[in-house]
């Protein structure tokens, strides 16, 4: 735990408050504002141990979806020996997420400093930045940053950028490590997730871009400044992309524990939201009675949601939550890696059930069949892609229960053929129209 006096000291001035956004973009300005990344000089066992202790003291959880403690991943990677790879995961496959794109465009050096620190802490020999093919504005920003660092000798461990395919599941950490290793962008079946990932014969440490930016900030500010934001059990700030029925969609930085509705309000909702989608397309709908729920792992779990990646989508009053859910599950079905039967066949079946329900075309057995399919598909993929679709569909049936009853009785949603309030990649959007 941080020293209490230290916490108070950081809390006194607004300008000293821990934050990720708003730092300079260019390397010179970045170093002038924040100082160089506090890297060790030479091989230094004591520094590596101290760095692990720093990560433990911060309580930083991964910001890529699973929220896994960064210190535990670091300890596992340190145990894997030297010569490994740090993978910067900037795949951001969630269509409603922009936070990692924003970070790499605005503060690429923060993300890369975090990767250098973890490389030093694990004695890794290379850093690989993964930006999906075709995402040129991000790739250009990263390229510029890598060139600056090379010229200024700020990259003691070599940093390279690669471009995996732009698919929803390509950013899943085993799929990403697999692609770097062998060019196959497929999640692997790992019954024991505690075993460190490997690329070739060496350990691979895969981290979301935002998580790495936090690592770089915490290394400079110390753990107290980070813990001074957010909750004791879920500390720090998080980047959240707010979209949907709002006037100012975009990325906001919030303290963990901020009520969901306050996050939505930062983007100026157009009218009273009907529901909020939290955590992404594999996340969960949240009904108005839970709008005050703190954005934190435990609180969200208690209402059947997950923090997931930082995403809040506002559903306006003139939208059909079931139809939107059907579109989302159809999209997720199309993004399956295509390896596991329950995902390949189950997700299209669930999407079809939801679509028929929203259109008032349900047969008598639909709700029972859908319930069975949700139970049977859950947890039966190599990765958690199908589980996310199931969670989304289940939460839709609960949050829009009144609509479910009406539509199941044959009344289609008056809004079912309205344009979606959600973002889908262009090619997928063509497919998901009913």
């Amino acid at each position, binding site marked *: 735990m941080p020293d209490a006096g230290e916490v108070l000291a950081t809390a006194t001035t607004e300008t000293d408050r821990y934050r990720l956004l708003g730092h300079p973009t260019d390397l010179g300005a970045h170093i002038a504002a924040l100082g160089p990344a506090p890297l060790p000089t030479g091989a230094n066992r004591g520094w590596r141990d101290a760095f692990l202790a720093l990560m433990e003291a911060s309580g930083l959880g991964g910001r890529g979806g699973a929220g896994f403690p960064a210190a535990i991943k670091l300890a596992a990677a340190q145990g894997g020996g030297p010569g490994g790879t740090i993978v910067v995961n900037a795949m951001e496959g969630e269509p409603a997420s922009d936070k990692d794109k924003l970070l790499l465009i605005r503060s690429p050096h923060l993300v890369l400093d975090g990767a250098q620190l973890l490389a030093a802490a694990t004695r890794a020999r290379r850093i690989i930045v993964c930006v999906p093919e075709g995402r040129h504005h991000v790739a250009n920003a990263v390229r510029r940053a890598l060139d600056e660092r090379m010229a200024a000798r700020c990259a003691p461990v070599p940093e390279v950028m690669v471009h995996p395919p732009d698919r929803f599941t390509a950013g899943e950490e085993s799929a990403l490590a697999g692609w770097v290793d062998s060019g196959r962008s497929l999640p692997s*079946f790992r019954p024991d997730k505690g075993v460190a990932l490997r690329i070739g014969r060496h350990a691979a440490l895969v981290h979301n871009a935002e998580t790495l930016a936090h690592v770089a900030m915490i290394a400079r500010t110390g753990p107290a400044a980070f813990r001074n934001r957010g909750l004791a059990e879920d500390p720090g700030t998080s980047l959240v992309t707010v979209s949907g029925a709002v006037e100012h969609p975009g990325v906001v930085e919030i303290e963990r524990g901020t009520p969901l509705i306050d996050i939505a309000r930062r983007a100026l909702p157009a009218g009273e939201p009907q529901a909020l989608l939290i955590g992404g397309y594999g996340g969960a709908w949240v009904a108005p009675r839970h709008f005050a729920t703190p954005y934190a792992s435990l609180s969200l779990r208690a209402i059947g949601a997950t923090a997931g990646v930082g995403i809040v989508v506002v559903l306006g009053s003139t939208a059909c939550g079931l139809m939107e859910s059907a579109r989302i599950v159809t999209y997720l079905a199309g993004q399956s890696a295509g390896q596991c*039967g*329950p*995902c390949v*066949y189950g997700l299209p079946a669930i999407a079809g059930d939801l679509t028929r329900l929203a259109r008032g075309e349900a047969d008598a057995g639909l709700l029972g069949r859908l319930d069975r399919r949700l139970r*049977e598909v859950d947890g*039966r993929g190599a990765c958690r892609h199908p589980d996310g679709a199931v969670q989304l569909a289940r939460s839709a049936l609960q949050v829009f229960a009144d609509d479910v009853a009406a539509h199941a009785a044959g009344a289609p949603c008056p809004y079912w053929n309205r344009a979606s309030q959600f973002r889908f990649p262009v090619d997928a959007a063509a497919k998901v129209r009913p």
Partner: protein
Amino acid sequence: MIRILVDPVACDAYGYCAELLPEAITVDEWGYPIVDGKPLPPELVSAARRAARDCPRRAITLRERKSGH
């Protein structure tokens, strides 16, 4: 205690396992196995070993687990 593990990537829904061990394995509507997740009763262990051995995709493994986990 022994647990049955299905590798969903390897599995191609041949369905032999559910025929050889219907007490612990059923199939979903597309023919993919669903394991009930309960500890395997000792009298079913030899049938489970056969299901694992006879799977054309080698998708079934038996995992020894210490009780309490």
